[in-house]
C-alpha cells in the first residue's frame, strides 16, 4: 500500500528566508503527488500537483516542488517565506486512476518576524 512520510512535524523559518518542507512517498507504481496547505480554521487548499512529466512543478504563491523517483521524494520549496505562509502543509499521494489520497501527518510551518 502507498504511504507518505513528512519527517518534520514542525519547521520554523524567519520571514524572507527560504523554505524546504520534506516529503517521502512509498509506492511502486507511478504516483500522482500533491501538496495541500491548511490555514488556521480553514479546510485544505491545493498548492500544487505532480502528474508524470516535468519533475519541477510550480504552484500558487511562489511555491514549487520537485519530484525525484530515485529518492522517492516530493519536497516543497519557496525562495522567500512570508508571514502569511504560517500554516500546516500536507503532502499526499494518489494511486494512479483511483482518486484515493493518502496524506502525510503534516508539517506545521511557523514564520518568525
Amino acid at each position, binding site marked *: 500500500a502507498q504511504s507518505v512520510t513528512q519527517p518534520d512535524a514542525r519547521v520554523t523559518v524567519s520571514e524572507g528566508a527560504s523554505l524546504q518542507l520534506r516529503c517521502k512517498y512509498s509506492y511502486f507504481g507511478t504516483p*500522482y503527488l*500533491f501538496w*495541500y496547505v*491548511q490555514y488556521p*480554521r*480553514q*479546510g*485544505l*487548499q*491545493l498548492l500544487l*500537483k505532480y502528474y508524470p512529466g516535468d519533475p519541477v512543478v510550480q504552484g500558487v504563491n511562489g511555491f514549487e516542488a520537485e519530484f525525484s523517483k530515485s529518492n522517492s521524494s516530493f519536497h516543497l520549496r519557496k525562495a522567500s517565506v512570508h508571514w502569511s505562509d504560517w500554516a*500546516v502543509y*500536507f503532502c*499526499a*499521494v*494518489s*494511486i494512479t*486512476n*483511483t*482518486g*484515493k*489520497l493518502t*496524506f502525510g*501527518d*503534516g508539517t*506545521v510551518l511557523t514564520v518568525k518576524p
Partner: protein
Amino acid sequence: ETAVFQTPNYHVTQVGNEVSFNCKQTLGHDTMYWYKQDSKKLLKIMFSYNNKQLIVNETVPRRFSPQSSDKAHLNLRIKSVEPEDSAVYLCASSWTGVGEQYFGPGTRLTVL
C-alpha cells in the same frame, strides 16, 4: 473561492446525542468524501461515495453513516456521539479516478 460548502461551522453536543452535518459541492464532481481531522491535525478518510459505490473505511464505527440525495450532496450522520468523536470533519469532492480533491472549510464538533 469556496465551491465545497459545509454546515454548520461548529457544533457542541452531549454524549449520546445524534448529529448531522451537511456538505454540498458546486463543482459538478461525481465523487465526495468525508475526512476526520483530530486535534493533532491528522487526517483520516472515513467515506468516499459516488453514484455507484460507497467505500467505507473499515475502522469507522458503525454509528457514523453517510447520506446522499444526489451527487452534489453528501451528509454525515452520527447516531450516538461519544467524546472521541470531537474533531473537525472535512468534506471534499473530486472527479472519479482523479486525486485532486477540493475541500470544504470543515465542521468542528465538540462532544461534552
